[in-house]
Each structure stands twice: as C-alpha cells, then as structure tokens.
C-alpha cells in the first residue's frame, strides 16, 4: 500500500437497529483517499453519507469490512481525533451556550497530545480567528447566541485553523447557511488545503459545491458509492443515473429546471 493513503476502506458496511427494523446505512463501500486530497461525498438525505463521515471520524465503527486510517484500524479514538477533526452541520448546535466562544476554542486544544503552553494557545486562537477574517476583539467575551449563523460557522472553521489537524471531515457545513456565507466557507476549505496541506472530506448534497472544491467526487445513493471520479468527469460525463439526477435537480439560472 502506498504510504500516502490516509483512509482505506474495503467492503465496509454499517447497520442500525435489529431484526426487521435493521437498516443498512453503508453497504459494502470501498475507497482509498490519498494525503492532501479534497474528496466530496455527495448524495441526497438518507443516502448514508453522514454515517460514512462518522465512520471516518471514528464515532462509529463499521460492522463488517476493513477500515484503515494510515494503514491501521482506528482503536484509540483520542489518538484518532488528535489528527482527524470535524466541522458539523449546525453551527449553533455545536457550541455550548453557557461558555464564551473563546474559551471553547481554547478547550479544543484538550485533544492535542502535546499541549501547547498557555501563551501559545492564546496566540494560535488569535491566528485562527484572523485566518477566518474575524478580529479577535470582536468575539472577546461573546457567547454563541450573540453571533449570526455565518459567524458561528466561521468559529467552527477557526477551531480547525487552530488545531491544524491532518484530516478534516466537513459534514454538510454549508447546508444551514445563506448563499453568501456558503461561498465564504468554501474559500476557507480551499485555504486549509492550500496553506496547511490538509486532507478534506466534504459531505454535501449539492454537487455544484462539490464540483467547485473537490479533487474527487464520490456519489452515494442508498448506502452505496455509485460513482467516483474527477469533478469534471462526474459532472460532464456522468455514468450513473443517480449522478445525472443530482445534477439535474440543482436549480441553475441558465438551464431549464422544471417544465411548467
């Protein structure tokens, strides 16, 4: 196996529930993700993309198949989170409203194996805030409910800029924010890749966004990966009917969308 493979999945499956109610969320999925790639996982709701993201994050473990991070299975989640971090969908739900934002950004350093000194933590938080265009003074003493959704989503990204993990799993970070904030977030994802060489797994239902940021796109449908490839190939020459559908379903201003 080449040494630059970050994630390697072979026939992994994940089930929920028992007996008749057993639902397959991920069905015999295989892939390799290389160091420094931005891979988008695209699919409709309930296709299993979020479950797959949680497997990569180590919050779930697959029921069958082998899933390796840097050639080893994930056994110690704390060690895993030292290198693999995540941005979630709902920026408001992600912060504890009883503590200031800054203190929560500092809390994030708790996962690092080598804890930086106090001054270093302060400095890294400041740098991270500047990286997402927020003046540290602007959020000084502020609590999560005092900021807008767009600002909160930036705070989640600032957390990533501060921790500098090897891998970022972004689970629908744009689905609950406005169009203008969305473009912003994609900019920051690109910046993370370019400046820090981060590997990014971007989960979304909008193939248009995936096309814009990705090196590779996986299309998921009903727990399986139905198509994978370069964004140009996937969008211009889709092989799977599900990909075609995802492309057609995006309302584009220059294309007929629904026949009236």
């Amino acid at each position: 196996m080449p040494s630059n493979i970050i994630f390697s999945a072979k026939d992994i499956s994940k089930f929920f529930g028992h007996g008749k109610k057993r639902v397959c969320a991920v069905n015999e999925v295989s892939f390799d993700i290389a160091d420094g790639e931005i891979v988008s996982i695209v699919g409709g709701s309930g296709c299993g993309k979020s479950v797959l993201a949680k497997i990569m994050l180590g919050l779930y473990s697959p029921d069958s198949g082998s899933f390796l991070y840097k050639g080893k299975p994930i056994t110690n989640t704390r060690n895993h989170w030292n290198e693999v971090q995540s941005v979630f969908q709902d920026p408001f739900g992600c912060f504890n409203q009883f503590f200031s934002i800054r203190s929560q950004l500092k809390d994030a350093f708790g996962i690092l194996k080598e804890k930086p000194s106090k001054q270093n933590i302060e400095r890294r938080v400041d740098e991270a805030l500047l990286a997402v265009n927020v003046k540290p003074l602007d959020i000084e003493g502020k609590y999560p409910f005092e900021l807008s959704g767009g600002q909160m989503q930036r705070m989640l990204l600032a957390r990533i800029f501060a921790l500098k993990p090897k891998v970022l799993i972004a689970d629908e970070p744009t689905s609950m924010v406005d169009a203008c904030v969305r473009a912003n977030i994609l900019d920051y994802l690109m910046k993370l890749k370019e400046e820090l060489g981060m590997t990014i797994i971007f989960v979304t239902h909008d193939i248009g966004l995936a096309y814009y940021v990705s090196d590779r796109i996986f299309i998921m449908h009903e727990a399986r990966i139905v198509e994978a490839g370069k964004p140009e190939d996937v969008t211009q020459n889709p092989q799977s009917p599900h990909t075609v559908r995802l492309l057609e379903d995006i309302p584009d201003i220059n294309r007929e969308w629904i026949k009236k």
Partner: protein
Amino acid sequence: MLKLLKNLIKEPMFVIGIFLFLTTVLAGLLGPSFYIAQPRSEFGYEAPLAPRGIEVDLSKNTLIHWVVHRGDTLYAKETIKRDSLGNMLNSTTPATYWIGTDNLGQDYMALLLRGLQNSLYVGFLAGIIATTIGTLVGLFAGFKGGIIDDILNMFTNLFIVIPSFVVLVLVSTSFPQGRSLTLIAILIGFTTWPWTARSVRAQAASLRGRDHISLARINGASNLQIIFKHILPYLASYVFMVFIMQVASGILSESAISMIGLGPLGEGATSLGVILNTAKNQSAITDGLWWGIFPAAIVITVIVFALYLLNNSMEGVFNPRLRK
C-alpha cells in the same frame, strides 16, 4: 444573571411568589428566635385574642381572673386567693394569645412558627436529597444510554411503582421510639427522587445526540466533563425548577404522614403536620375550634402555593432562547 433577575422581576407571578416565599421563610427562620411566647395558659384551646379581665371580690378577699374560653360566650373564671400578706397564691399572668392556645394552653403562635421552621427544614432537606439523587441518576442514565440506562431505568421504575407513601408509612412505623425531623426528611427524599430522575433522564437523553456533545468528544473531553460541563448547565434551570417542586411536595408529604400520626416524634419535633395531627386528635374540627386547624393549614397552603408560583414563572424566563 442580572438580566435573568430583571426578567423575573417583570413577571407578576414571580413577584407574588417570591414575596410569599420570603415572608414564610423569614418567619420560619427568625420567628422562633425573635417571637417571645406568652406563658402557658391555664386553659386549652383559648380563642385568639380572647377578651379577659380581672374582678375583685372584696367580700371573699379574692381576685377573679376570667377569660373567654373556646370561643363561646361563657366566661371561664378562676378565683385567685390571696395570702395574709396580700400576695396572689396562683401567679398566672393574664395574657392574650394572638391566635389562641393549643390543647395544653401553649401559645399557638410560638408553636406555629416552630412548626413552620421544622416543616421548611424537612421540605428543603427532602428536596435536596431527592434532587441530588434524581439528577445524578437521570444524568448518567440519559447520557450513557445502553445498558447503564436500562439498569438505572429499571431501578427508577421500581421505585416509582412502589407507592412511596406506603413506604413512608411502613418505615415510619418501624421507628416507634422516636423519629427526628431529619429522619423524616431523609425518608421523603429517598422515596421521591425517581420522578426527578425520570424527567432529567429524558432531558439528558435528548441532549446526548446534540452536536455540541460530539464536538466536546472530539475536543477530548471526558465523560464526567461532558456530563457536568456540557449537559448539566443546559438542565440547571430545569433541575432548579424540579427542586422547587420537590420542596413543595416534601412539605406536603411531611404534613400528610404527620396527619396520620407517623410524623416526627419526640422532644421539639413539632411541625405543621404535627400541629394538624394534634388538633385532629383533640377533635378540634368537630368542636368548631377553627384556630386549631386553620393557621397551620393556611401556612402550608401559602408556602406550597408560593413555590408553585415561583416554578411557573421561572419556566418562561429560564428558556435560554428567550434570554437574548
């Protein structure tokens, strides 16, 4: 915190509730030390503010000391003889009692204040015990889920299906020699926690799946840190409200078991329930001696009502979303 208080003060329910609550608590705390009890009367169940007087019978060289007894128009008279030097042989001081006397002629006001103090003590202690156990059990069950949740849940349900009042009665009867207030409070606390556990569990379980818990996890927070830093604060206002209700139900439970004669027993172990029980035993109700029953009953009602008002008014204000 200040904003919260400001908001609370705008609720009329809260203002009335806190006024009634503070009044009763202050009366209970300070009353017994500051109120100077009138000396014991010769008569049981003397009416509140009973008219009284002294007549001199020169022919017999006696003083006649009279008082309206039991609310009716009959005068109870007492002849006090004087010795050769003119000193009164029976030195009962004529006194007027604010709310009358009990069956033994003790000043009812002093008794009521003492009873209120003790009832509050039982209520708060029972509330603290029930809330602490219930919250801890609920938090762990709700947060951990799975097998720990199942076991704790079974345990909780077991306590819920056993009628707590029956347990109270049974345990109380097994201490016939003496039951301190603390013992009664502990008994109440240990039988009422499952309700708190249940509601806290439901709330904690709904928080478990929240993103901020997942984030805390990948921040490297331990289970205890997550429970006390990321779950408990969200439930704090809720737990506080449950605590208030537990105090109210503690006071009610105490008076209920005292009413059937299984309350605190022994020196100084009077309480609002005990007062009611004594009045009942002395058939104060059937004899129309309303002052034997009403003051204690009203005090219980007022304090429980005040706690309910507080609980109700806090519900609206504590909602974090309204706190902006």
